């Protein structure tokens, strides 16, 4: 088969359905990555328009442009859109589009999950957009502090839109994080060891792990606040044992890592582009990886620095002040690595490089003001002033938008196959750079003069008029620059001016494909021997197209790729992907019905939507696996590896493991909240504590033992070639016993509306019951699969996932009962 015939055959196998209808059924990362990016930039446009409206309001004193109610919606939605609907999805889109190409593979680990994540983002974002159009958008700031957001002070639906919409959108982020993690760890080109991974992949791996551990506290906070608003469970009401500071802890446990979740991918873009622009390799690759890991984990120890003015003891302040200054060190390691890279190379002042230089100036200033606000006495002075607004824009715009624009111009030829015809990018850069600094330097200044954040107007006697006018003019110059960027991208797509292959002379694998990349990325999966395979072998693209490497023979008509060993990159498993399907969009729509039913208080609809999601999820999983033993599969070059249906740890095991990491973080945050209320909240102790029940404890212990023994027996029976039915039924009985024990526990718990203690016990018990249902569904599914002939001693992957979830259920149930009874035992 020659290269052209191979290309045609692979294109027929991997392409999405033709026409616009194909958008709804595509599971290809090229399509979905671009869909994420286009949607994210659409929201960037809307967020930008809102910013202009804010600046129009503040340009003059006593402005009547927007009243306080509308202004509240404007600044809240500006922050919400930029953080949740632009920045995070843009990162996801960029990673989803680029990573399989950079890693030398054909798609992400779970293509349908990519699509499901996109549609959750689409529907969740649309929900928030509709609220804006109807004038009922969230209006309490992007951080939604109670008691302002409680039912008393925010009785309308505005706050619910935030709580429901953001939780819906965050499903998308969790989906993306799980599959980015698994894809980077396991879906790489043969030979690509951890030390040969493109640096961008390291950044995204770290960020994906941060999303898995950073987002759950906010999801939990949103659930608790919605439960308070909808059902009167008083988690944040001081008079009923709650504490509004709990929200601040949960929010900033997410909120501070969020800053680094946004910055680190942008730093990954810089670390990728800068060496290419300097015609050299990245200086200190290992140090940069270590600094990235350090920065990511240190960022989880900073959350209280957003709460310096809440009356925390000096020692607590000192802990977080010290941690806040420490993050400057790994950040500086990266900055010095970038400077050193330019020093050892030959920098070319091409357009992406201009944006990188803009990033340097802006981000370093933002970093320095960050160290200033890390110092407690200074923070007390500038807290809640425009100085902090200016600081965060220097960090986020400087640390994210400038690198993103550098990346846009760098990878645009890869996405469109065209090169720039009109030279508008340089003009746009000048306007954006000047406009940004005029806007936000002035904002620092007016903040130091005392202008508070979020005020809708001010008087001429305050002395802020001229500075605000300058800031507003700068804002409009910045917006004009961004419009020119948009114009240039549109022109690039329209004007047929073909680009050369690998126009920047980069060494990474994304440039080894044709431009734009075909649906299958690589005709054969290359053998990688260094971090810059294209510099090692300039003929590599031709050899890949000729099918000289792995999986170069598309004879069986399946979407195939490889799983490799995490550390060494040795091929280990053969993967066959599912085809195009509308299942993800349907499941996202039904998920949306669940969230809408909560939002509109049509609670009877919610269980039906949950049943719908569960049914679709089972349909989703049913299409996987095989009814016959496959044996080891030839993958080319004389290598044989097993199919994923015949291994102990298939992709589903890895996905579940990382999903459980996020789940455990949510559970841990719930326990933290419980401990916080118990020890800190002024309304404790409650009227009475629940005392341990022998019935509940014995039933739980029996249930755990049966569940663990049953699933273990099922796995070993299947491995011996016997039917695993008996083990599965024993496990199911054990799960049922756990459910009974948790239900009995809830009947003894105090009312969930009388005190935060009772509310917390109800959430803990409900958390356990939800997991009982999930585990039971898994076991029923396995029984059906066994009956349908999907299991054998060789096809053992079917039974890999359920033990993980059952083990997790048992551990969490034990912790729920222990923590629930602990205050009673201590008292």
């Amino acid at each position, binding site marked *: 088969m020659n290269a052209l015939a191979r290309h045609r055959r692979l294109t027929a196998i991997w392409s999405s359905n033709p026409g616009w209808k194909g958008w709804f059924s595509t599971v290809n990362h090229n399509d979905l990555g671009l869909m994420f990016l286009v949607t994210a930039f659409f929201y960037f446009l809307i967020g930008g328009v809102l910013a202009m409206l804010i600046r129009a309001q503040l340009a003059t004193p006593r402005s009547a442009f927007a009243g306080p109610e509308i202004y509240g919606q404007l600044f809240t939605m500006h922050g919400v859109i930029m953080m949740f609907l632009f920045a995070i999805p843009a990162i996801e889109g960029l990673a989803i589009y680029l990573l399989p190409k950079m890693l030398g593979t054909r798609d992400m680990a779970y293509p349908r999950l990519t699509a499901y994540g996109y549609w959750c983002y689409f529907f969740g974002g649309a929900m928030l957009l509709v609220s804006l159009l109807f004038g009922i958008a969230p209006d309490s700031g992007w951080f939604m502090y109670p008691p302002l957001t409680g039912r008393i002070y925010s009785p309308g639906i505005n706050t619910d839109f935030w709580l429901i919409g953001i939780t819906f959108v965050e499903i998308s982020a969790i989906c993306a994080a799980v599959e980015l993690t698994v894809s980077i*760890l396991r879906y790489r080109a043969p030979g690509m060891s951890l030390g040969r991974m493109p640096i961008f992949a390291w950044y995204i791996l770290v960020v994906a792990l941060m999303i898995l551990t950073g987002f759950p506290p906010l999801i939990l906070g949103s659930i608790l606040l919605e439960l308070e608003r909808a059902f009167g469970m008083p988690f944040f009401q001081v008079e009923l044992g709650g504490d509004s500071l709990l929200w601040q802890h949960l929010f900033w446990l997410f909120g501070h890592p969020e800053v680094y979740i946004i910055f680190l991918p942008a730093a990954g873009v810089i670390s990728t582009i800068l060496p290419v622009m300097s015609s050299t390799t990245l200086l200190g690759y*290992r*140090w940069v990886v270590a600094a990235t890991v350090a920065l990511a984990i*240190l960022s989880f120890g900073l959350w*209280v620095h957003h709460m310096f003015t809440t009356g925390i003891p*000096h020692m*607590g302040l*000192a*802990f977080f002040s010290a941690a806040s200054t420490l993050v400057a060190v790994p950040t500086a390691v990266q900055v010095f690595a970038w400077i050193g890279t330019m020093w050892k190379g030959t920098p070319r002042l091409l357009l992406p490089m201009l944006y990188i230089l803009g990033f340097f100036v802006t981000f370093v200033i933002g970093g320095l003001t960050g160290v200033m606000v890390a110092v407690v006495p200074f923070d007390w002075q500038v807290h809640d002033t425009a100085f902090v607004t200016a600081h965060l824009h220097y960090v986020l715009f400087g640390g994210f938008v400038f690198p993103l624009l550098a990346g846009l111009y760098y990878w645009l030829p890869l996405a469109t196959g065209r090169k720039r015809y009109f030279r508008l990018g340089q003009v746009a850069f000048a306007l954006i750079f000047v406009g940004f600094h005029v806007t936000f330097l002035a904002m620092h200044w007016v903040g130091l003069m005392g202008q508070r954040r979020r005020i809708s107007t001010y008087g001429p006697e305050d002395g802020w008029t001229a500075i605000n006018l300058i800031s507003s003019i700068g804002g409009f110059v910045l917006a004009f620059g961004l419009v020119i960027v948009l114009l240039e991208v549109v022109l690039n797509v329209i004007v047929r001016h073909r680009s050369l292959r690998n126009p920047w002379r980069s060494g990474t694998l994304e440039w080894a494909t044709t431009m734009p990349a075909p649906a299958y990325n690589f005709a054969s999966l290359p053998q990688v021997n260094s971090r810059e395979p294209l510099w090692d072998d300039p003929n590599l693209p031709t050899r890949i197209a000729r099918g000289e490497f792995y999986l170069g023979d598309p004879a069986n008509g399946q979407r195939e790729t490889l799983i490799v060993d995490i550390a060494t990159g040795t091929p280990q498993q053969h993967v066959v992907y599912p085809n195009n399907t509308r299942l993800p969009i349907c499941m996202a729509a039904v998920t949306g019905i669940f969230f809408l039913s909560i939002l509109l208080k049509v609670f009877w609809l919610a269980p039906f939507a949950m049943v719908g999601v569960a049914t679709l999820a089972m349909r989703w999983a049913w299409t996987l696996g095989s009814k016959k033993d496959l044996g080891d599969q030839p993958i080319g070059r004389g290598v044989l590896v097993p199919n994923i249906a015949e291994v102990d740890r298939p992709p589903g095991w890895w996905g579940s493991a990382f999903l459980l990491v996020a789940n455990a973080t949510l559970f841990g945050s719930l326990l933290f909240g419980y401990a916080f209320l118990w020890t800190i909240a002024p309304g404790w102790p409650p009227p009475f504590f629940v005392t341990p029940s022998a019935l509940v404890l014995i039933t739980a212990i029996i249930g755990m033992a049966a569940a663990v023994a049953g699933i273990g027996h099922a796995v070993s029976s299947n491995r011996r070639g016997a039917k695993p039915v008996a083990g599965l039924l024993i496990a199911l009985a054990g799960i049922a016993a756990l459910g009974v024990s948790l239900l009995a526990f809830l009947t003894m718990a105090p009312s969930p509306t009388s005190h935060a203690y009772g509310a917390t016990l109800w959430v803990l018990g409900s958390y356990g019951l939800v997991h009982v249902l999930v585990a039971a569904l898994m076991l029923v599914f396995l029984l059906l699969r066994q009956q349908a002939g999907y299991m054998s001693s060789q096809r053992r992957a079917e039974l890999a996932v359920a033990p993980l979830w059952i083990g997790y259920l048992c551990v969490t149930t034990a912790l729920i009962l222990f923590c629930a009874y602990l205050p009673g035992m201590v008292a």
Partner: protein
Amino acid sequence: MRDLLRILVSPFVWLAAFSAVYGLHGILCEIDLGATFAGASWRRLSLAIAFSLAILVQVVLLMMLHSDRFGAAPGFSRAVSRASGWVGLVAVLWTLFPVLTTTTCG
């Protein structure tokens, strides 16, 4: 996976220790221990013991990462895991040092 764990373990242990000491500080400030030992309050002594334990754990981890038995094979993973081991130790020393120097619950 082991290499990844070696890279992550020390900073994660720092995060756990940092959160634990902060939590312990919160709890101690809610409890009136009332007594002193050798001129120092029980609160400060408890926090200082926790600080010492955190340092000890980080030192042990660092030694393990430098050993042939527990450390990664020579190359990328060894270099990065050792660097992150030092990050964990320095982070414990820097961020928990206030237990010795500032007022406890004021």
